[in-house]
């Protein structure tokens, strides 16, 4: 194998892996704490992308403007998350998870309908910010700077979430609520508040991912579905609710997908399912099984 090919596979794999992780982070977070598999996550990711496109236009002025737009869409989708929690998700706490799956699926369809009604069915394209809109040569292979930018942001997001979850008070409280909501309530934690804030954080993460990844592919109402499927696979392989497991699973999925596309391009996209099948048989509860997850 040529060095340039190896570098190419590695960087592309990391880039798609980090793109999956940006989407999967919110998904796994809300699953870890609320035990709710949010099928609508991809739809809110898509709304985030549309909001970023509407605020920022198709040509960002600089990396900072681009990041600012992503943060704005994170806030907007976080606010939508608050509304959704108030109207729908709050009533799903404690019901059988089948109902939650169907309700969040209904939410997903609803969001797609809203996006179609507001933005139409045309495709939009957004360019990466000018500073990262070029390629550099690493090990004889051309790598887009935007790719490295996404990888960096993915790793940064992971570190921030890890620190919040394992090194801060807020993380301790969230883990306590996730393990035993009743007991957490008796020791004076405001459980409904923690759950609501977790939902808002998860939605904000989806909105942020939408803003960051919008130059990655043409923007349409289907943009959520393609990312969220991989995010589901990553969350399952990683162990439902484990951010660390999801991160590792995303990297694996990204690299396998990229190697598959490079060396077996005529059968592109199939290796991921082989990987998933192996994992579900070998480790049915994922890499880092979360306690209490079903």
């Amino acid at each position: 194998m040529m060095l340039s090919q190896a570098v190419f596979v590695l960087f592309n794999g990391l880039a798609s892996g980090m793109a999956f992780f940006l989407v999967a982070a919110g998904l796994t977070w809300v699953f870890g704490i609320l035990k709710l598999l949010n099928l609508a996550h991809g739809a809110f990711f898509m709304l985030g992308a549309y909001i970023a496109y509407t605020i920022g236009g198709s040509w960002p002025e600089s990396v900072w403007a681009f990041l600012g737009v992503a943060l704005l869409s994170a806030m907007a989708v976080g606010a939508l998350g608050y509304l959704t929690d108030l109207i729908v998700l709050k009533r799903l706490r404690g019901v059988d998870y089948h109902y939650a799956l169907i309700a969040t699926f209904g939410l997903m369809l609803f969001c797609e309908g809203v996006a179609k009604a507001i933005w139409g069915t045309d495709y939009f394209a957004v360019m990466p910010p000018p500073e990262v809109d070029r390629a550099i040569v690493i090990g004889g292979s051309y790598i887009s700077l935007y790719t490295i930018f996404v990888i960096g942001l993915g790793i940064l997001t992971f570190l921030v979430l890890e620190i919040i979850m394992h090194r801060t008070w807020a993380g301790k409280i969230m883990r306590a609520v996730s393990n035993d909501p009743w007991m957490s309530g008796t020791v004076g934690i405001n459980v409904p508040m923690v759950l609501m804030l977790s939902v808002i954080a998860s939605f904000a993460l989806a909105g942020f991912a939408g803003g960051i990844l919008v130059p990655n592919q043409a923007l349409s109402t289907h943009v959520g579905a393609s990312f969220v499927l991989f995010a589901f696979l990553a969350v399952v392989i990683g162990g439902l609710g484990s951010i660390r497991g999801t991160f590792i699973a995303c990297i694996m999925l990204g690299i396998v997908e990229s190697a598959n596309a490079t060396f077996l391009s005529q059968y592109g996209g199939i290796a991921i399912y082989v990987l998933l099948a192996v994992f579900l048989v070998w480790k049915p509860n994922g890499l880092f099984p979360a306690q209490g997850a079903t």
Partner: protein
Amino acid sequence: MGQRTLNIGATTGTPITVWLGPVALTILVVLLYFAPHLVNPGILFVVGMTLIQSVFALSWNLLFGYTGLPSFGHAGFYAIGAYFTGAALRYDFQLHFLVTLVIAGLLGALVALAIGVVALKRLTGIFLAVLTVALTEALGKIIGFSPALGEQDGLGNIPRPIMDFGLFTVDLTHGDDYYRFLVVAVVAIVAGLWWVVHSRLGRAFRAVRDDADRARFVGIDVLRYRVYSFMISGGTAALAGALSAPLTRIVTLDQVNWLASTQPILNSLLGGFTSFWGPIVGSVAFSTINYWTRSFPGLSEMMVGGILVVVILVAPTGIVGMLGKLRDRFTKNGDKA
């Protein structure tokens, strides 16, 4: 979960309600059979697809409503049936059409057996749901790579069959004739499923659903009955797909993704998964909403999604469950759960 009252075949009540069901069903079937004389071809196609979706939803609900196993990749089975029948008719496998249908159903059941033996041993709930999604996506990829199955373009120009019974032939090449065959086939399948859920097998499925540990304790082989349910469900879904191929005359990859898999789920939940007839009611309701809202971009998704959320929040037992509650309230002699 509280809402799982078994209201199957609820024929307790006054003698009128006992007769009402069968009479209404007979009238409905007769109306369906003569529909080609009553409605235009566009609506006839919608009615035909609704019949197929009803069978598809019933097959999903056998798995979920009766055995407690969610499959989010049921479109895979549907696609196996549709692609097999499509290929058999298009490349003229020299099979009798009824034999083709039987093989399609058996193929679905065999694939379900393979998945069931490997996966059901350890996976239930969300893991099973995700595995079935992934397998369906993988199947879609494989079909996308197969030139014989039309790759990304789908399998088009599927001829409708002519059935040769030796003494006489039944020509289904005309759309109306195929539709009538479809009505008969769907009634037969629905009757078969009705028999399954009211037999010992159906009782065992419900026992496994309600409490797997206790079912095991009274001597039910839980894994075996889960696999049976998966096989019957997969086979029926494949039959639904097989019946759809000559109606639509094209089979495409749109039928093999996880969004297509959610159609039977929607229909079952909308109609009510605690009742045998719920999935059919849901399919009819869904087709009607879809038909009315089809020309407004986004409205159809908003309506369907919104209705689904409202149904889950307000009436988790679906339309049939809600009607049952209303009936109990008005008649006041229904045995309350």
